[in-house]
């Protein structure tokens, strides 16, 4: 390959063509606009919104975050504007960006997932839904659905029944057999998977003897969870034939490449956005440089190339 030619970073997942395999992770990129002062959002492969529920959610009492070794705990509690305000105030901006917009959907019941999904169905500017069955920070719903293959399948089926949009099911790492839950989501009609969500965790202030979070437990993210995420993504890729999107602690192009090599067809970048607002852009450039320096002309030629 001519080294001056730009390599092809594009991937197609669940019928959605993305110009590169770098997506934003839900809950770390707001509703997109928050990052517009820092870079041209059209550069990213796809944007995944904050999780959207039927009604607005106020979220958990503070403190909501704390730093831990190479990571952070959060207990935001799915604070979001609700589906109606999302459609009215947030989607029009996102729809004009010219990149695939994936809306993260959450619910406290099967019915709520279906209601949010059907409200989003047919709206201009939405490329796919990501079903969040893995948030650790609410009392009901979230993780409870993601930890049980039968419940997970029921959520996916209910959402599948009300929308023709491609569905990505976001999985929790908090299961004993990731392959089992991955297959359940696939069989229920999910077009792709994304994993991992945060790992439930805790930190204590030894002076006050209270949790360092307002809600006792939180979800761990950041570089600390990358090896855990990578293994689970590798296992999920073995278990299903639908595309897998990998996430968990990705900061750099090298991190992203590890996920792609084990078989993820794309990656999501989360906590790194908080630290370096142009993290996605830096990773995309790093992927391009990696391919060019090795004379590889397509990112597809890297995906799933793990050697025994």
């Amino acid at each position, binding site marked *: 390959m001519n080294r001056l030619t730009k390599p092809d970073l594009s991937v197609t997942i669940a019928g959605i063509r993305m110009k590169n395999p770098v997506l934003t992770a839900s*809950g770390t990129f707001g509703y997109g606009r928050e*990052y517009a002062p820092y870079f041209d959002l059209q550069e990213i492969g796809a944007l995944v919104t904050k999780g959207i529920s039927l009604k607005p959610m106020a979220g958990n009492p503070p403190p*909501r*975050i704390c730093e831990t070794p190479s990571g952070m705990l959060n207990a935001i509690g799915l604070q979001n504007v609700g589906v109606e305000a999302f459609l009215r105030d947030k989607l029009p901006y996102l729809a004009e960006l010219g990149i695939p917009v994936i809306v993260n959907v959450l619910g406290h019941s099967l019915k709520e997932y279906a209601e949010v999904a059907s409200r989003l169905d047919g709206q201009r500017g939405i490329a796919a839904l990501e079903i969040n069955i893995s948030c650790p920070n609410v009392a009901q719903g979230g993780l409870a659905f993601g930890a049980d293959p039968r419940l997970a399948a029921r959520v996916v089926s209910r959402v599948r029944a009300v929308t023709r949009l491609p569905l990505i099911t976001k999985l929790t790492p908090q299961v004993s057999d990731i392959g089992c839950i991955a297959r359940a989501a696939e069989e229920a009609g999910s077009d792709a998977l994304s994993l991992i969500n945060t790992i439930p965790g805790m930190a204590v202030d030894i002076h006050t003897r209270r949790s360092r979070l307002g809600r006792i437990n939180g979800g761990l993210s950041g570089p600390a969870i990358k090896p855990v995420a990578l293994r689970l993504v590798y296992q999920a890729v073995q278990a299903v034939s639908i595309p897998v999107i990998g996430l968990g602690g990705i900061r750099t192009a090298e991190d992203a490449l590890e996920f792609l090599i084990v078989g993820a067809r794309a990656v999501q970048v989360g906590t790194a*956005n908080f630290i370096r607002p142009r993290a996605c852009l830096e990773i995309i450039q790093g992927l391009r440089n990696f391919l060019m320096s090795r004379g590889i002309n397509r990112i597809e030629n890297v995906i799933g190339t793990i050697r025994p």
Partner: protein
Amino acid sequence: MFFQELPLKKIEMMGPEVCRLGFASREIAGKARPGQFLMIKPQAWAEPLLPRPISIHRVQGGMVELLVRVVGEGTRRISSMRPGEILEVKGPLGRGFQVDPQKVPLLVAGGMGAAPLLFLAEKLSRSGARKKNRAPVLFIGGRTKKEILALKEFRQAGLKVLAATEDGSFGERGLVTDRLRDYLEAQSAESALYACGPVGMLKAVAALALKEGLPCQVSLEERMACGMGACLGCAVARKQEEGPGYAKVCQDGPVFEAGEIVWDE
């Protein structure tokens, strides 16, 4: 808003716990308003992982100065940086003080709360708010004299200074809010309060302002990961039409009208 990687120009300890650091950025200096803050961390992916929110202490020409109190590992790492090392800086962020030029500014600083108020004081001084008998007043307090920061700079900016320390080592013995209460009982001029300090102090200032019917803005602090409205980590309980909810300290603040805040939570 900018995200820049800048060499530290200067850094000095102001005592055992507080350091003052400075860097040059025409862009940030040009856009910064009193009460706004920056997210800072040592360069690249070094620990601490997350940047720390630090209010802007001073802007002089293209130089930006910050005061950082060492409260944990993150701020300890920042305070141990050396000139020439690279600082990641995001900002200026948030909503700063909205000054009412018709009223006498009363600044209330508790401990580290002096940091953003110096920027405000110097701005007031430059914008000529020091008309006869309308010079801004600074109420400043801390536990001991060591906690009274930037006194010389406040005086140079033309502020009348009324100080209090809990141990009596500087100014009057007692709380800064005691001095404020005495002042408000005696004075008659139309004034506006701008406060930054520990939450207990802010709550007391808000109560005084409510009692006297004075406008009052408070600068709040909360842990945050991004500083730009994305992580939703920095929640503060706020009164809203539909009942109490959470505002984002980073975007809706850090400066709020005292009456907006639910102080009891």
